[in-house]
């Protein structure tokens, strides 16, 4: 028995094999063990992977939140937006705290999409990497990496890749309420709304492709949303 190790005490006996047998007993047992091991691995691995990756497809729903009475925001004369803090999810006040910059335009239309809308409500999240921006007389400035925006929230200097997000708002019984967040960009000089993307991710490219390429490269959005608003 050539395959019996030297000095082995094993009996030098192997079972006679059927001449047409393609798989030996040892090979069969090895394959069975590997297959069984793979099955056991899958039983643990598949649910574990799904468990870990589940958040990847999850989207948040923006919960309407009151910023305060309208009169609190209407004293602005020059560009000096009022900071309004809010808690988006009352269950998680420490992580869902946000700040909106409410800019009073001096006009009285309470339709947020109108050209003479009363307010423009900016998100304070810098579109470079998400630091909080501060209002300045010229617009907004980010302390982290020096991003600068003008009074429309459009980048004027530094690394941000698109204008500041804006909040959809309405006035309910004299209270200013934000109801949804939108990413924005100017397309041919026209303010255009897009589903929310995280800072650093573009919403559109110049030219005929529009938002096609960004939607392929940066596929998922943060918030569930209804129809995308068209400014009047």
């Amino acid at each position, binding site marked *: 028995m050539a395959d019996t190790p030297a000095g082995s005490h094993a009996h030098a006996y192997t079972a006679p094999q059927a001449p047409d047998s393609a798989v030996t007993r040892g090979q069969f047992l090895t394959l069975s063990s590997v297959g069984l091991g793979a099955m056991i691995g899958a039983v643990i691995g598949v649910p574990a992977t799904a468990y*870990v*990756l589940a*958040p*990847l497809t*999850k*989207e*948040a729903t923006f919960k309407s939140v009151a910023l305060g009475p309208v009169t609190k925001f209407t004293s602005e004369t020059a560009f000096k937006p009022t900071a309004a803090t809010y808690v988006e*999810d009352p269950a*998680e006040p*420490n*992580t*869902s705290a946000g700040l909106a910059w409410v800019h009073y335009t001096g006009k009285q239309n309470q339709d947020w999409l109108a050209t003479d809308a009363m307010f423009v409500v900016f998100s304070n999240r810098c579109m470079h*990497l*998400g*630091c*909080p921006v501060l209002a300045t007389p010229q617009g907004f400035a980010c302390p*982290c990496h020096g991003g600068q925006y003008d009074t429309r929230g459009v980048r004027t200097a530094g690394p941000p890749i698109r204008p500041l997000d804006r909040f959809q708002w309405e006035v309910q019984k004299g209270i200013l309420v934000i109801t949804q967040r939108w990413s924005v960009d100017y397309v041919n000089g026209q303010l255009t709304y897009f589903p929310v*993307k*995280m*800072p*650093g*991710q573009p919403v559109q490219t110049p030219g005929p492709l529009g938002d096609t390429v960004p939607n*392929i*490269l*940066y*596929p*998922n959005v*943060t*918030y569930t949303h209804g129809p995308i608003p068209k400014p009047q």
Partner: protein
Amino acid sequence: MPSPIPIPPPPSPKQMVLATEDWVEYRTGFPTLVRKFLFRKVPPTGWFHTLGSSLLTVFILQATTGALLAMTYDPSPNGAYESIRYITDVQTLGWLIRGMHKWGASVMVILLFLHMGRTFFYGAYKYPREMTWLTGSLIFISVMGMGLTGYLLVWDERAYWASVVAININGTAPVLGPFISKFLLGGPVIGAQTISRFYALHMLLIPGAIIALIFVHMWLVVKLGVTPWPSRPPEPEPEPAFEPHPQQHVDAPVAVPVTAAAEQREVQEVGGD
């Protein structure tokens, strides 16, 4: 009356130690393992060769202090900062344990870069040590992951915003970026799930990976040996110049013609070849 059988003297302490070692050796083989690990042959080494052991030491310190911190730390948005303040200000020697963990983290990254530089400049990543370099690279990435996930756990303003920035940097990678950032966030936005996720990564997953990788890395170091400082292969020994023995000054003038004559005769008689 003296005993007919001589009583052996009691074993000396050294004999007892040796007997204990034999006992353990026979049952586990560990003494041989340890001896082979510690008393292996190495080429001439210097201080640069201590960086790997220093890294291992710092890692053990980080693991120990980290386990101690975890006994008090509360990975929740409401409790994280307060528990850290408790560790630092109230708990006995908490400032020391936390300080060691904090500074040890920086020391580990610095040592890691030095160790990597040593490996690079010694050419120690080349055949046959490619796998050592690759496992080292995985350890490097894991340590970076520890830095990222540990930073958030302090849960002060700097930790929060630095993590927001880091997560958004991940998000800017095309195609996979948004998924990576959502994986790190544990959801669409930063929340309670983010800090517990970072805690689990920092406490369990990444350290487990590092420990496994360290074993592979060290097995390879022991198996392949330490790389010496790269140098040119030694010059071949020059042919020794003819240096006659003092006696030859006397003998040679006589012996050489005689021998030459004898050899010539031999060649003539035997026929050369």
